[in-house]
């Protein structure tokens, strides 16, 4: 799904990266807790749906090579955060819809959920390095 279509479906506007509206997002992941994003997302090209508007969101997006960030519940990040995202090439979108509505609309229209990464406690955790 293209970012342009995401924006249309959830009535979002681009805060940054409007020139990247044709970028494809492969899957989506929704969370306010960034530690969840850091722990769970394993692929690139993911659309992050979040109500957290701190500067760490953009840093996480950059570190994890996310495709874009969609801010929900009408929350807007401060201007320095938007400026940073613009120069880092991370599109930011904002909608006044709730996270639930955004997930509902995008999933119903065919955007798949991000593949989940197994958490360490689902496996035997090895404290020694593999050889």
């Amino acid at each position: 799904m293209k970012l342009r279509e995401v924006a249309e479906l959830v009535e979002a506007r681009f805060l940054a990266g409007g020139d990247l509206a044709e970028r494809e997002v492969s899957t989506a992941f929704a969370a306010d807790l960034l530690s969840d994003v850091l722990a769970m997302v394993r692929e690139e090209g993911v659309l992050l749906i979040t109500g957290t508007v701190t500067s760490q969101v953009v840093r996480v997006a950059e570190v994890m090579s996310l495709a874009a960030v969609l801010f929900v519940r009408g929350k807007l990040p401060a201007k320095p955060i938007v400026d940073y995202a613009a120069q880092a090439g991370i599109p930011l979108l904002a909608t006044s819809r709730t996270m639930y509505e955004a997930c509902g609309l995008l999933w119903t229209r065919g955007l798949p959920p991000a593949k989940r990464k197994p958490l360490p406690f689902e496996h035997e955790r090895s404290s020694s390095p593999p050889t």
Partner: protein
Amino acid sequence: MKLAEVAEELGFEFLVRARPEVEVTDGYVSDLLSDVLAHAEPGELWLTHQRHLNVVAVAKLRELSGVVFVRGLRPGPEVVRKAREEGVNLLVSPAEAFHTAGRLHKLLFP
């Protein structure tokens, strides 16, 4: 739709089955307690990653139809105990928040 039916349809497991007949009016996804306190509506089913004990108090205060922990997350025993005391429904969804919300949305508003 009643919570028990929603749970059946979407494969949620009940951790605390306090009021399975309660009506689910809609959904709300959030990990921020303050946001839920301010914006969730009575009857909504709350999907969250947040497993803090205060989740139970917030759900009770906002008269939510229940709390669903997403991607198989399980709260600690004190959360379950408190929910039982307060009569708050607790459930677990094996799918992540995006997927769980998508399916709930489609189920309630096909």
